[in-house]
């Protein structure tokens, strides 16, 4: 179980309605279903992964978040989760707006491009950074719109999204991000986790 998933699970209250966008093989869904007794649905683009979810007894719809979130009515879910996928969309802003339309709250996690290892890699090697959370080469990465924790915070402010909680993850350590430590967290965190509302 990824640390990220444990943090996400802690942000979710019991017995709620949850949609996991880009639910992959359903690991997080299964964990939430078993531990939080949530009514959970998944949306996943890969046929193989949808099959894996079905084999776990999860309710998953094969589909593309950029096109297929439209089918859900406003505020159909208490929480919508988007784990490390925002950067892979053609139009991340559209997806964020959709998440916050179908969900009362959204939990968005982003691989932090401001992480010191990423900066160091580019600075010293002069090639596109490869890290644990960014494992692909420039030519085969699905990521189109990388951002830093700071970028994301600035973006949410500019769009008037409310951030309820921002957390920074670095290996096993989880910490809160606030106004005063933003630069610091942006440097030392691998992943940012945000609970937001429109």
């Amino acid at each position, binding site marked *: 179980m990824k640390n990220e998933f444990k943090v996400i699970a802690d942000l979710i209250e019991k017995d709620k*309605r949850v949609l996991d966008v880009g639910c992959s093989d359903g690991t997080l869904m299964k964990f939430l279903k078993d531990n939080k007794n949530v009514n959970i649905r998944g949306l996943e683009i890969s046929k193989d992964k949808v099959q894996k979810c079905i*084999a776990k007894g999860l309710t*998953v719809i*094969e*589909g593309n978040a950029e096109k297929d979130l439209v*089918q859900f*009515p406003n505020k159909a879910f208490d929480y919508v989760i988007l784990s490390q996928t925002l950067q892979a969309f053609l139009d991340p802003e559209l997806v964020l707006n959709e998440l916050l339309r179908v969900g009362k709250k959204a939990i968005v996690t982003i691989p932090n491009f401001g992480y010191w290892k990423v900066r160091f890699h580019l600075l010293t090697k002069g090639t596109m950074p490869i890290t644990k959370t960014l494992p692909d080469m420039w030519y085969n990465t699905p990521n189109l719109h990388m951002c830093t924790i700071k970028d994301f915070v600035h973006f949410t402010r500019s769009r008037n999204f409310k951030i309820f909680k921002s957390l920074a993850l670095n290996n096993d350590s989880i910490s809160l991000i606030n106004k005063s430590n933003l630069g610091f967290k942006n440097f030392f965190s691998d992943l940012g986790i945000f609970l937001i509302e429109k």
Partner: protein
Amino acid sequence: MNTNKNIKTLIVKKSLRLDCGKTINNYPIAYETYGALNEKKDNAILVFHALTGDQFVTGKNPVTKKDGWWSYLVGPDKAIDTNKYFVICSNVIGGCMGSYGPSHNDPNTQEVFGINFPVITINDMVNAQENLLDHFGIDKLFSVAGGSMGGMQVLQFVSNFPEKTKTAIPIACTSSHSAQNIALNELGRQAITADSNWKEGNYLSKDTNPNKGLAVARMAAHITYLSKKGLQEKFGRKLQEREDLKFSFDADFQIESYLRYQGSVFVDRFDANSYLYITRAMDYFDLSRKFKGNLSEAFKKTKAKFFIISFTSDWLYPTQENKDIVIALNSIGADVGFVEIESDKGHDSFLLDVPDFLSAVKNFLEKSYLNS
């Protein structure tokens, strides 16, 4: 009328008012079952057949001596595991494998109905079949499943009887027949009625058969069940038992010979009037019509867990039409899963050995049964 002794029949006493306004009663429904109903009676799956199917889902069909139409999916240790589940399937009314249909006698005239049989709908078929639940003392089915017209019946069943099934698996189907679907069916009907042996539907009493027309209808329909790629890979331009073209209208190409064969075996097992009635029922199918075009309303009362499946190469009931059902269900917060299965085999994929499809159904049922 098929009076084979291998056909089990339930005579339904309760009268049924059909959509056309006529009422039928004391009518037969021919059915078959596989596996055993458990003590709690919670392991029953009602399977609905497609246009030319029948109640003989799996094993040897005792009438045609061929394998049952869903032998890949249903049987011991298969996706719909008859060691575990009690599978019921019945011939639709209007059909020709023992259920009330146009080859039966009209009780009023004691003559064969022919086209005097009332025009039936998918709704009528489902309402008739629901009597099987009473017959077996089942309050709630574990699942309803079917592909193509069988899938339409699944949707209609859940809409009509929202409390009577825990899960529903509509496969490769639609919630309303498209203009293209209707056009293709009309082509088949025209082929039958243009055959001079059809005799205005009275061929049985005149001891003849519109076999040529029915075969053409089947040939045309058969093309719609396959994909262009599938046909090309299987047949291409290969010639049929000859070195070169014959410059005649003989079956030079393997695909021609194949289609002719499909037509010829079909007429041995299917009744031309039934073909007219059942295709008509499919054309009349539009589940949202009763709800002023709002499909979601059709499912509003159900808590059933849906699993919708489509196939990439199915152009008869394409993925988008299946997805429209998913969308309607999502908009009312229903429990719905969906997967599009990769297959070159066209609409027929649901009847064939497509491993991803078979495992998806197996996993869905197994997990749903555990959690029920």
